């Protein structure tokens, strides 16, 4: 082992004399240690995910013991109506959360700088609260709210219906809409922060030029501002969808009867005993997420290349992680 680095050092022409070469050897060793650590971390990050996928092809009954390969658990997962229903629910919740959060968050970000100072300060403060408060607290608080709200609302509905002679009123209770409502609270805050960060980095001269050229405010918004905000809006939408699609804890509190989302279903399956079916579902989710990520990455990349921009050192257009959200104020 140790003879190899020595021989490579000797092979190189030593330019700077003895001391310099010594430093370079040390430098090369430091390099090696860093690279080794990096490789170890990548293994640490990817081996567990790889194992989930490998065990999904297990022919045996138990996840931990690999007994030949088969696709039986995929067949079983894809024929499982509960799993498919949960997937449908998750997609619905994720879609509506992303749509509502992106729309409202962007609207608020566009208008907030024109609002009176107290309104702006309060809105900012509430946004920060929505972001830093743990998901579990949002889950509890919204659950309590929903329970009380429905307990108050339903008698009134009943009263209204009977007084209008419509018979029995529909009973409003928890369901997918309550999950969407809670998810929007914090995803909207994230979109708001992202879009505002992008807005503050935008060239005001363009908006002024547009106004000087007699564009209506609406037209300026559509043709100048929104196109420039597109990366932030897309990143916000993607983040919102991912958070919503991935959320377990909030959904577990405010879910309606018999309408689990996919994380609720998966968690339930894990609790009932781990079979490779869970792995099959997990692998399918991974496949979908990674494909979506790759597509988004390529789209963003093409866009940034089209606008003849060399990819930044810090790729601010690539929606990287929630870290982007929380660090986007850096710029």
């Amino acid at each position, binding site marked *: 082992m140790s003879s190899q680095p020595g021989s490579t050092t000797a092979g190189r022409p030593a330019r700077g004399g003895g001391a310099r070469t010594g430093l370079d050897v040390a430098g090369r060793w*430091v390099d090696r240690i860093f690279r080794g650590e990096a490789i170890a971390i990548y293994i640490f990050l990817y081996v567990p995910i790889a194992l989930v996928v490998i065990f999904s092809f297990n022919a045996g009954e138990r996840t931990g013991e690999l007994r030949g390969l088969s696709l039986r658990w995929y067949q079983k997962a894809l024929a499982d109506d509960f799993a498919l229903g949960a997937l449908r629910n998750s997609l619905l919740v994720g879609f509506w959360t992303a749509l509502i959060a992106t729309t409202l968050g962007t*609207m608020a970000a566009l208008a907030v700088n024109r609002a009176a100072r107290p309104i702006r300060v309060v*809105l900012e403060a509430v946004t920060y609260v929505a972001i830093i408060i*743990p998901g579990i607290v949002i889950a509890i608080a919204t659950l309590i709210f929903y329970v009380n709200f429905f307990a108050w609302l339903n008698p009134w509905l009943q009263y209204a219906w009977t007084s209008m002679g419509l018979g029995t009123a529909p009973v409003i209770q928890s369901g997918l809409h309550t999950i969407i409502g809670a998810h929007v*609270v914090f995803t909207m805050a994230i979109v708001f922060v992202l879009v505002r960060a992008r807005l503050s980095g935008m060239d005001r001269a363009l908006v002024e030029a547009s106004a000087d050229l007699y564009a209506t405010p609406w037209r300026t918004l559509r043709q100048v501002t929104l196109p420039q905000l597109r990366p932030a809006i897309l990143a916000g939408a993607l983040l919102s969808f991912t958070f919503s699609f*991935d959320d377990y804890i909030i959904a577990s509190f405010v879910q309606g009867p018999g309408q689990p989302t996919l994380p609720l279903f*998966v968690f339930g399956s894990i609790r009932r005993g781990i079979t490779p079916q869970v792995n099959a579902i997990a692998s399918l989710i991974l496949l979908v997420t990674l494909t979506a990520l790759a597509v988004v990455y390529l789209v963003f990349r093409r866009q940034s290349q089209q606008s003849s921009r060399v990819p930044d050192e810090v790729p601010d257009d690539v929606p990287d992680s929630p870290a982007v959200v929380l660090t986007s104020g850096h710029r």
Partner: protein
Amino acid sequence: MTNVARPRHQAGRWRQRAATAVFLLPTSFWYFLLLVVPLGILLVFSVGERAPQGGYAPGFTLANFAHLPTRSVAFTNTLFLAAGGTVLCLLVGYPLAYYLATRAGSKKTFLLVLVIVPFWTSFLIRTYAWLTILGSTGVPALLENLGFGKVVLLNTPLAVMIGIVYNYLPLMVFPLYVSLERLDKRLLEASKDLGAARWRTFRQVTLPLTLPGVLSGVVLVFIPIMGEYLIPALLGGGRVFFVGNALVDAFLQSRNWPFGSAMAIGLIFIVLIAVALYLRVGSRGQVRRDISLV
């Protein structure tokens, strides 16, 4: 001319104000209804009493807060494991971020994306992956075959710690990478030219200048871990539990809503202290310029 222009101008301003209001109203309403009001109710509940069949009964008592020490294990678990997990993420993440920012060459964007990709995959699945690895047929069986005797990994603080580092490492690496990337490399050259050894350059130049990134990373990781539920639930198996697990227990099992509310307020309180500390440290001197939570 002026007579015509002025009312038009005013009309425009009114229209603008109306537009601003219309744009802000939905968001404000949503926040108010589903965040401000619920948190208010939480506060009211926390001084209430438990109804006989569970739930909430009106009242005013501080007994719920006085009873918080009965769940002190949850709080100390959370604090210690969150702090330990954060430090571990930092120790593991800093060298990686350093490597990516200074030595990875043209591949660094790709390698950074590779760190962040797992963060976009399902949190639940990532935690579940460790359930098999640490479970009795996983690493413990392997160790036993190698002659290490019987080892239990699952349902220990170590398992929870591994889960935490695994899930939160990307969140730590990202801000570290950003601050290391922005570091003016000429300063390192200068330090080297002035005869400073590697370690000294790191200690006196690199580390102080990337402290804002360290701080951001620490906060980004620490705060969400405080509210963690899934990792202790799956990898701690009821033996290592966080405030989040105690909360779920109080609300969904024992249905003691007032006590649960008091615990939730306690959790919010700790998170706010962490944020306040962060802002305070951050506002000291130059550090402030470069960081902000959001």
